[in-house]
């Protein structure tokens, strides 16, 4: 039951062609050390599920710049010009999803739901190819769950069982992605002993977490 592994061991679990989820919002809450190692090891053809593609030199943006992403599922790509370039050049497939829908899709994947009905996107191009379902006279889009092979998340304080406490705005998609992948790896700013976290304060229970990497203060 030792969940502590090295960054190398963590990145070795990520193979060419895998689907990965990465927590974070414009880099805030990205697991930066793991991403840097992923760039170094140059794992290819990844499908990346992330809120955004961050900036070219910050967080997940580096994976795009290094041409490691085959397909990106995100809500916003405007802060990384390289994403737009690769998208327009046909080098990378980009699926744009409303942010609240993306959050619910990841959550549904983790919660064993077959999907959720959202009013967001009705009457827009977002509804193309999707089932529309009317409930009590109102139209909704059926949005399907998302899952991944590996979720790479970050936490502020993490105990050795994987219980996570977050700080500030780093939480974003990290809590959701922790539930929705076959393998969940958390990069911890600080690792503490089991029992050091108040069970009332834990945000992500450790049962969701498979491995812990010491990321040091970010």
């Amino acid at each position, binding site marked *: 039951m030792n969940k502590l592994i090295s960054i190398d061991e963590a990145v070795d679990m990520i193979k060419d062609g895998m689907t990965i989820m990465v927590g974070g919002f414009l880099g805030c809450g990205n697991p930066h050390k793991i991403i840097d190692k992923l760039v170094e090891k140059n794992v290819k053809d990844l499908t990346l599920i992330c809120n955004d593609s961050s900036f070219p030199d910050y967080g997940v943006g580096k994976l795009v710049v290094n041409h490691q992403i085959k397909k990106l599922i995100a809500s916003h790509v405007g802060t990384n010009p390289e994403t737009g370039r690769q998208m327009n050049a046909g080098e990378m497939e980009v699926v744009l999803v409303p942010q609240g829908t993306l959050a619910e899709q990841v959550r549904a994947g983790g919660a064993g739901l077959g999907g959720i009905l959202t009013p967001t996107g009705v009457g*827009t191009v977002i509804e193309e190819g999707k089932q529309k379902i009317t409930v009590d006279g109102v139209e909704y889009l059926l949005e399907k769950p998302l899952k991944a092979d590996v979720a790479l998340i970050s936490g502020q304080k993490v105990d050795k069982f994987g219980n996570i406490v977050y700080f*500030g705005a780093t939480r974003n998609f990290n809590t959701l992605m922790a539930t929705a992948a076959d393998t969940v790896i958390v990069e911890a700013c600080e690792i503490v002993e089991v029992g050091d976290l108040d069970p009332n304060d834990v945000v992500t229970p450790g049962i969701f977490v498979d491995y812990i990497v010491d990321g040091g203060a970010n």
Partner: protein
Amino acid sequence: MDKNEIKAFIAKRVAKELKDGDVVNLGIGLPTMVANYIPEGMNIFLQSENGFIGLGPAPEPGKEDMRIVNAGGQPVTIIPGGAFFDSATSFTIIRGGHVDMTVLGALQVDEKGNLANWMIPGKMVPGMGGAMDLVTGAKKVIIAMEHTAKGAPKILKECTLPLTAAHQVDMIITEMGVMEVTDKGIVLKEINPEFTIEDVQNSTEAELIIAEDLKKMEI
């Protein structure tokens, strides 16, 4: 008025729509400026869709913490009484109707309350971020923008760009006036005395309905 004065003028007028206790989400750019004009003594709770409520001003230089940023990724602060949460909770607040007002810019807005502000096909495709949820879920949607883009109308009979949401816009505030989107069309409720009704109509593709009690736009 120069560009900056126009923006400040619009932001000040938007601020007059705020009510004590409102939960408000401000889009990037001009809408963000509304925060500078919140009336004294009024409690407004700014929601940041990346995961908190109680958005405060930028920190002092040297006190930035990259773990506390706004939806544009810029360092900010949180006010006492604020709270951090994840993206699911953030959009429970947004989609669930717990945001009293959102203020956003537009590329185009039309007389049916349709809004286009997230892409120009083949040219600019930044993604919708949280905008589609915000426009769908907020109780009141205000579009705050310059009335035209390089002289071309942005308030149209029908949007031609891909929509952000259909039938959701409640109010449009520009440097020329304050307009309400109604079932019958766009009603000009207030006019900036620097302009005539003809000026406003000439800068607007949609046919304006002039309010019987048309007022002077004041800030």
